[in-house]
């Protein structure tokens, strides 16, 4: 088992719908909950992670704030095409602390994960950390 979402594991953010240069989407995969990516207005919002290799994913954990609905899609292609939905969840609203949500994925294979935030509990939402447990 590895945490495959880390920059140090070769993961990259290849797209994000919003960016404030002080809060870039790379903050999501630096392994720290203190740093974050923040959306800059309107929904939907999304970002796409590319892994160094094809992964068999067992668990994805997301630390966020004010996210309401989140959809997760995966691609098994090398060029981030043909995404298919694998999970969807309504997060609970938290105040004063981060939301932590797990997605069990029973070893689904993927080269990319796409996170689509379709609504929020506020105009702006933040994602602090995405952890991906899997086997190469």
């Amino acid at each position, binding site marked *: 088992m590895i945490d495959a979402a880390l920059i140090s594991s070769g993961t990259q953010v290849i797209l994000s719908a919003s960016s404030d*240069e*002080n809060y870039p989407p790379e903050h999501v995969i630096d392994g720290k909950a203190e740093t*974050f990516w*923040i959306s800059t*207005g*309107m929904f939907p919002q999304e970002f796409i992670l590319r892994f160094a290799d094809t992964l068999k994913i067992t668990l994805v954990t997301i630390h966020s704030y004010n996210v309401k609905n989140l959809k997760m899609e995966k691609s098994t292609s090398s060029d981030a095409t043909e995404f298919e939905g694998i999970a969807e969840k309504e997060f609970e609203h938290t105040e*004063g602390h981060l939301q932590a949500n797990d997605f069990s994925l029973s070893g689904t294979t993927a080269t990319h994960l796409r996170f689509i935030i379709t*609504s929020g509990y506020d105009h*702006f939402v933040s994602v602090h950390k995405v952890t991906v447990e899997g086997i190469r």
Partner: protein
Amino acid sequence: MVKLRARCILVGDASVGKSALSQMFRSDGAHFQKNYSMTAGVELVVKSVQIPETSDSVELFIFDSAGKETFAEACEKLWGQPSVLCLVFDVSSDVSFRSCSLWLERVRAHCQGLQVPGVLVGNKSDLSSRREVETVVAQEWAQSQGLEYHETSAKEMENCEAPFLSLAQAFYALYQDRLQTIQTLA
């Protein structure tokens, strides 16, 4: 540097000058449509507003919605989750002013309890001899509803930017405030 995006819902009775106002704003005063053409659905106007003394900006996606009741319901479906609100009436029409509370209610129903900055705009301020709504009255009502009041004349190119600039600034302030909250969380 950051570029925010805000969904600005532009509403009010038919023929108060919503489209004239948004077109004047979009074209920096170069385009005042002299002939009335009724908006039947929603017209989207997109324009960036620079926030003074920063390198940041807010891109306003203005949803210029039909005021005519027949089309109102269909328009509402396109509003989505509003970021900011621009409510317009005609200072020479008391009826259009009295409709404002209904428009406000309509938009708020889409806000899901979120804080949505708004402005009230009294347009056609050039029609001073036909004025039916006094500035003080409009101002008081706006204040009671948490809206900032502006008077404009799209025809005379007066003050047309002010309401949109004020909305952009309010949305920007909201962003700064939320950033601060989030920074204290982790």
